[in-house]
């Protein structure tokens, strides 16, 4: 028995490729595929012709050749005799360093500002609104350049620290904020410091275990075990004890003015500071909006219900509001982290040697291998972005509302 909706019987006709919805999609896909191949073929043939005309080829051999330029900030060993690959790695680490530090500070500033924007204090509320709007609506490149100019112009130069009538002085005798960069004390790990560090790690594990235990006690037996003070105690006491038992193996190397500049300690270059600072406060403005939106997304009924159950305000925040708000806040927060990582490529504007500055800047100019370097550069950022989005997807799935 056939009904009207049955497809018409009969052989395959060529016109069905266009008119029959069952086959039409194949036609379109086939055309798209052909067009794609044709486009790539066209671009490829252009590429081959252009490379031939310029006497070039595609080769990654330059990565193994000595770079021949210096990088002023490096986390791993590098000299001008190292290879281009090594230079790219130094740049990549510098990118990651800026990104991680900026993410950290952006989160802190953003959360504080976001909470303050919801404050009942009219003045603070408006002030934070002004901050957010001003920073969100001006390009980050302009902020980076402004902050770099401010650092160089406003902070004292190292020579102003010198002499008896020095116009500038170090903060607490150990931090120097100069126009060239910041100098911090650097921890020096002497013999035996390994044990102190291990003790510290062990105490962190201990805190985690203890909190687990406390939670289990609460769930299984309904006993409230205090966690705050034992955690603080575990955090400090064993490490400090071990520090003195081992005879204070970790010391601090203070920066000191020698000649025209500071020596010793950790030196954070002004380009690094300016870039990190600018990225942090720029992105913090966006994060503040996300945080505000997240908290506002939780209906007041939740707060009231929690209060009617007899929870204290602090616990309402911790147990009811935050877990729900975080679900709203975290996905945009992570995409802001992604933005920081991508925006850190603007380092090239202040001369900070990140991967765009080394691989996409000097290496490209020196070797003239534009296609290879730009491809590598893109691959680097792509890998970072894709891995961050993968993490985000895992998180999103884990906090997704369990609908029943």
């Amino acid at each position, binding site marked *: 028995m056939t009904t009207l909706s049955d497809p018409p019987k009969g052989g395959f006709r060529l016109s069905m490729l266009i008119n029959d919805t069952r086959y039409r999609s194949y036609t379109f896909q086939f055309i798209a595929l052909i067009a794609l191949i044709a486009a790539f073929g066209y671009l490829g043939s252009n590429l081959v012709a*252009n490379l031939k005309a310029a006497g070039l080829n595609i080769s990654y051999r330059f990565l193994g050749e000595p770079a021949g330029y210096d990088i002023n900030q490096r986390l791993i060993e590098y000299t001008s005799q190292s290879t281009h690959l090594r230079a790219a790695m130094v740049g990549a680490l510098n990118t990651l360093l800026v990104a991680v530090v900026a993410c950290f500070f952006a989160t802190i500033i953003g959360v504080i500002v976001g909470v303050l924007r919801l*404050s*009942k204090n009219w*003045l603070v509320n408006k002030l934070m609104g002004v901050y957010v709007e001003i920073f969100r609506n001006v390009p980050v490149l302009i902020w980076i350049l402004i902050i770099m100019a401010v650092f160089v112009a406003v902070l004292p130069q190292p020579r102003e620290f010198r002499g008896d009538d020095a116009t500038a002085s170090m903060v607490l005798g150990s931090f120097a904020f100069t126009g060239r960069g910041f100098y911090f004390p650097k921890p020096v790990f002497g013999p035996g410091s390994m044990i102190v560090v291990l003790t510290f790690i062990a105490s962190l594990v201990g805190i985690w275990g203890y909190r687990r235990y406390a939670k289990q006690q609460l769930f299984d037996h309904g006993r409230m075990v205090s966690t705050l003070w034992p955690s603080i105690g575990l955090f400090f006491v064993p490490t400090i004890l071990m520090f003195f038992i081992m005879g204070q193996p970790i010391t601090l190397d203070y920066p000191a003015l020698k000649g025209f500049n500071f020596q010793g300690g950790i030196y954070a270059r002004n380009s690094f500071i300016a870039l990190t600072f600018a990225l942090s406060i720029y992105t913090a403005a966006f994060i503040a909006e996300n945080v505000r939106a997240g908290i506002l997304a939780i209906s007041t009924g939740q707060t009231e219900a929690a209060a009617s159950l007899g929870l204290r305000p602090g616990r309402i925040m911790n147990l009811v509001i935050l877990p729900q708000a975080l679900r709203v806040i975290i996905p945009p927060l992570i995409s802001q982290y992604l933005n920081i990582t991508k925006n850190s490529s603007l380092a090239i504007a202040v001369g900070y040697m990140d991967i765009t500055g080394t691989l996409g800047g000097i290496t490209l100019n020196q070797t003239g291998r534009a296609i290879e370097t730009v491809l590598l550069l893109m691959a680097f950022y792509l890998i970072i972005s894709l891995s961050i989005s993968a993490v985000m997807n895992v998180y999103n799935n884990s906090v997704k509302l369990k609908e029943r």
Partner: protein
Amino acid sequence: MSDTNTTPVAFVRDAMLPEQAAPITAAGPLAWIKKNLFDGWFNSILTIVAIYFIYLIVSGAFPWFYNGVWTTDSLAECREILQGKTGGCFSVLTERWPQLLFGFKYPSEEYWRPTIAFFALFVAVAPVLFNKLPRKLLIVTAIFPFAAFWLIWGGSILVPIMVAVGLIVGYVVFTRLVYQSSAMGMIGGLVATVAVWMLSGYITDPLSGFLALEPVPSRDMGGFMLNFILGVTCVSLSLPLGILLALGRQSDMLIIKWICVVFIEFIRGVPLITLLFVANVVLGYFLPPGTNFDLILRVIIMITMFSAAYIAEVVRGGLAALPKGQAEAAGSLGLDYAQSMRLIILPQALKISIPGIVNVAVGLFKDTVLVSVISMFDLVGMIRGPILASTEWNGVYWELWLAAVLFFFPICYGISQYSQWLERQLATGHR
């Protein structure tokens, strides 16, 4: 009845007392201050810190503005006039104003052309932004791209006119054929447009002096004008491309879907600056040998692709937010895919995605300053390059950067306020 009633009452009020003003602590400015600024010790500390902060800024900025110098020719003269007082040297802005706006190569006797285009832009955009304006203004919108091109780049007026004629012919062919089949309409329209463009070469070449303005090559564009050109062009070009990408990503056709997915994820995964590197040094290798594309055109291509990927994701969000029933209802009415998209799905989906699209547009406009990194002289490029490097103005940071902030802030803030306003206007209460 008790006997209390029988005793005479000493006093009974028989008239209302006049209303008294609320106590000063419960209403009026003092109460407002107490409630909003000094409600508890923590709030008070916050208020005091905030007031101190505002004081710091005002006390620093006020003399700087008040003593500002507006009429000198170099920083040294500024310093002479100020004689050690705090004061801004705003004369850099007055002296270099045309450079900040138009770059340092645009012929100064032609400044009126981009200025007219700039103001015409507002007339052209107004009917798109505000529904209440007369619909006839849309004609200006349609003419604007061609007129603006003619004004800014110069050359014969025939070139933009022929481009417009090609598009009109294509549209007419499309409307004729679309009743037979949507695919036929599109292909026919495309072919007609390209044919007219190819034929028009025979008209424009011999008549290149017809109603011609002094031609200005692209590399002479600069200053804030360049940011504006890039921003407006790329946003308007990327909108249709972004919608197509979003539809492609939603499609059931695997190959098309994956082309779109790979394109979108790739573009969104890399920073714009690497795409600008591509425009600057790589794209030339992929173009036919011997052709020499303008840098500005290559940059427009890359930025358009960049923002199209972001707009595609926003539109995809809008498409996903629509109930599936809409598409099914359209199908059951007998509409084909193109019709149901054009008439049913996209109008609703775009409405939902307007705030996101506007956000992308603002972000894109801000990102146009990145072209200064590949040594194009947009606003930031002008400030960092020719102005700060000149002997007269070497060292004038604050005034210039403040100007840059003031160039961008009102526009971006205005657009984002507009999008919030529009969101409220479009909220129909049901989605």
